[in-house]
């Protein structure tokens, strides 16, 4: 893992000291709220419905045990004993006091963490595949390049006051787990005849005008990457609509100008700035790569695992659902679900955070990842350690076997916390999970991704959910629109709206009707929801959703 050098530590310490003084000046009355707001946003501090919220970056979703323990300490000391992991690999604290935030930031700096550029019109936290460095399907580990981009984009003088926020995600695999097609820039690491480079996608994004990203360049070599990214952001920074915040994101710029026009402008800009990149970035990249060298994997028997798998049905069910294939023989990637049925998606208590930190230290080479699906990953666990690990997870309510299933729901904070929300998300997710657990159906249903947003800004990625749910305010009442057939992978697709929305007390039965319709329609248990939807289309689902509702109403 990358550790801060003197420059990083000095930069964060200086920024924290500046922000401490800014908070003092705000409290003394020397700064008005209008003056203070952009300063607090630059440091990740929002004001929500019930309190302030501090958003802390977890660059490319990577943590070690010390960092995780410090996140737990912040939760206990300055919040209400928990944190909320988000779809952009951040952690949010929902209850800090303004006067405590400078101390929280200093505590984060002790473990090389900060909240800089987690808000505002800047380049945000760079996200990556949560199986980075471990996935069997990986071309290269995306974390070194994500760290290079973090360093390049942090306090970049040209990119501090852009038309809007800007989000970059990197995947090292063709099985995209970083949602790169729905980012301002998505990078896919590719291997061209033995040379590692980057396929660059731009102009993706969800929100009020959802767009799937477009390929601007099929192969950018390592030495050209930073100048190329700088050219893209620079072109948009000048061209992007500052007159209308709803048209300011790069997806609109690309849509209005066309990808070919943008490509030509980027190429021109790239030519102009390429000579100023003298190769320091490439040398730096090599240093960073060394920091992400894989741990020393051990060669040991997996007999204990195989015995437990045969004899313990609960362990077997968890293994079947929550493990992924590791690139090293005898190892597995462990996905810890933060979606226990009825709990808030993405929330972990401080006690759970410390338990996961301990487990990572004991069994996982001291590494943890946060996924955009709001779960925690132990990327490197030897299979012989899995039975003991599973037993420990159970003690902390962290052994829910539901990864990728209907209760593994992405949900934004919604109107329970967020000032922008138009409806609640969390209780909808809780009730869906509880309902399908009670029906004992979720393993039979199989791979099904439900994603819920509490407003059109789409933090819950509802457009790319197999079933997407969008909460709106319709004449002063919560109302939920459903979309079907969304896909967040490299085959990204926006879901189709089913029709009129459903009231808060109608949305769970509506989801149930969709799922029962799918079970009726699928050719066999191997045909997953997306495949069935692609085959039969919207009509039968619409009938199940609305005809039956009318039939019930007539009873």
């Amino acid at each position, binding site marked *: 893992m990358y550790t801060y050098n003197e420059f990083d530590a000095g930069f964060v310490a200086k920024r924290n000291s500046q922000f401490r003084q800014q908070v003092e000046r705000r*409290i003394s009355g020397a700064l008005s709220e209008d003056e203070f707001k952009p300063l607090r946003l630059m440091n990740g501090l929002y004001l929500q419905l019930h309190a302030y919220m501090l958003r802390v970056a977890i660059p490319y979703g990577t943590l070690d045990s010390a960092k995780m323990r410090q996140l737990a300490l912040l939760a206990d000391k300055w919040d*209400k004993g928990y944190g909320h992991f988000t779809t952009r690999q951040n952690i949010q604290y929902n209850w800090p006091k303004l006067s405590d935030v400078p101390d929280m930031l200093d505590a984060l700096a002790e473990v090389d963490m900060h909240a800089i550029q987690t808000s505002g019109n800047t380049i945000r936290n760079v996200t990556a595949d949560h199986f980075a460095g471990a996935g069997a399907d990986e071309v290269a580990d995306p974390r070194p390049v994500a760290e290079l981009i973090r360093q390049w984009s942090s306090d970049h003088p040209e990119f501090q006051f852009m038309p809007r926020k800007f989000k970059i995600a990197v995947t090292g695999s063709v099985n995209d787990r970083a949602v790169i097609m729905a980012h301002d820039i998505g990078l896919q690491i590719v291997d061209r005849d033995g040379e590692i480079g980057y396929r660059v996608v731009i102009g993706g994004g969800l929100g009020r005008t959802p767009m799937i990203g477009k390929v601007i360049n099929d192969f950018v070599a390592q030495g050209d990457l930073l100048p190329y990214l700088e050219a893209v952001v620079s072109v948009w920074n000048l061209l992007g609509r500052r007159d209308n915040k709803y048209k300011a994101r790069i997806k609109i710029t690309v849509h209005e100008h066309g990808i070919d026009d943008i490509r030509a402008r980027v190429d021109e800009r790239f030519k102009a700035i390429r000579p100023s990149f003298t190769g320091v970035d490439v040398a730096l990249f090599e240093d960073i790569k060394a920091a992400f060298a894989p741990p020393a994997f051990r060669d040991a028997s997996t007999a204990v695992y195989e015995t437990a798998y045969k004899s313990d049905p609960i362990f077997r069910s968890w293994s079947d659902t929550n493990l992924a294939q590791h690139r090293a023989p005898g190892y597995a990637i462990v996905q810890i679900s933060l979606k226990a049925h009825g709990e808030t998606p993405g929330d972990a208590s401080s006690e759970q955070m410390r338990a996961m930190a301990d487990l990572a230290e004991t069994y996982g080479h001291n590494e943890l990842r946060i996924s955009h699906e709001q779960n925690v990953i132990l990327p490197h666990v030897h299979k012989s350690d899995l039975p003991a690990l599973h037993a420990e997870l159970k003690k902390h309510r962290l052994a829910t076997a539901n990864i990728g299933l209907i209760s593994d729901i992405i949900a934004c904070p919604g109107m329970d916390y967020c000032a922008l929300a138009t409806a609640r998300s969390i209780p909808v997710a809780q009730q869906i999970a509880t309902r399908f657990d009670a029906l004992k159906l979720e393993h039979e249903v199989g791979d099904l991704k439900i994603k819920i947003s509490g407003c059109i800004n789409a933090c819950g990625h509802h457009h790319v959910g197999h079933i997407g749910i969008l909460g709106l305010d319709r004449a002063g009442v919560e109302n939920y629109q459903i979309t079907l057939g969304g896909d967040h992978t490299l085959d990204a697709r926006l879901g189709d709206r089913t029709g009129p929305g459903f009231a808060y007390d109608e949305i769970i039965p509506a989801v149930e009707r969709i799922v029962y319709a799918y079970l009726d329609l699928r050719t066999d248990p191997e045909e997953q929801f997306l495949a069935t939807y692609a085959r039969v289309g919207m009509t039968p689902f619409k009938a199940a959703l609305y005809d039956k509702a009318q039939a019930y109403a007539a009873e």
Partner: protein
Amino acid sequence: MARTFSPKVVTGNALIEGDVVYQTADDGWTRDLAHAEVLSDEAQANLRLLMAEGQPEVIVGAYLADVTPGTDGPVPTHFREGFRRTGPSNYFHGKQAEIG
């Protein structure tokens, strides 16, 4: 005919704690909507809002929120204000835990 003015309270968030506060008739602030001053005259409401905006060292983001009079003081008309008055629905945190 002049449009009717629906009753309002002045609300915002406390500067330090960030929690929801309501203006009281004696120019103070309360965390309990039941004790808020209900404004049924538009001109008076705008004046009281100006008064709140002049206290940046106490509160942030003052605005007028719709209420209806109830037996135990004003009640929010919109669900958003309902959540602000009580707290989140996933945990017993916020006002519901702090005000009996």
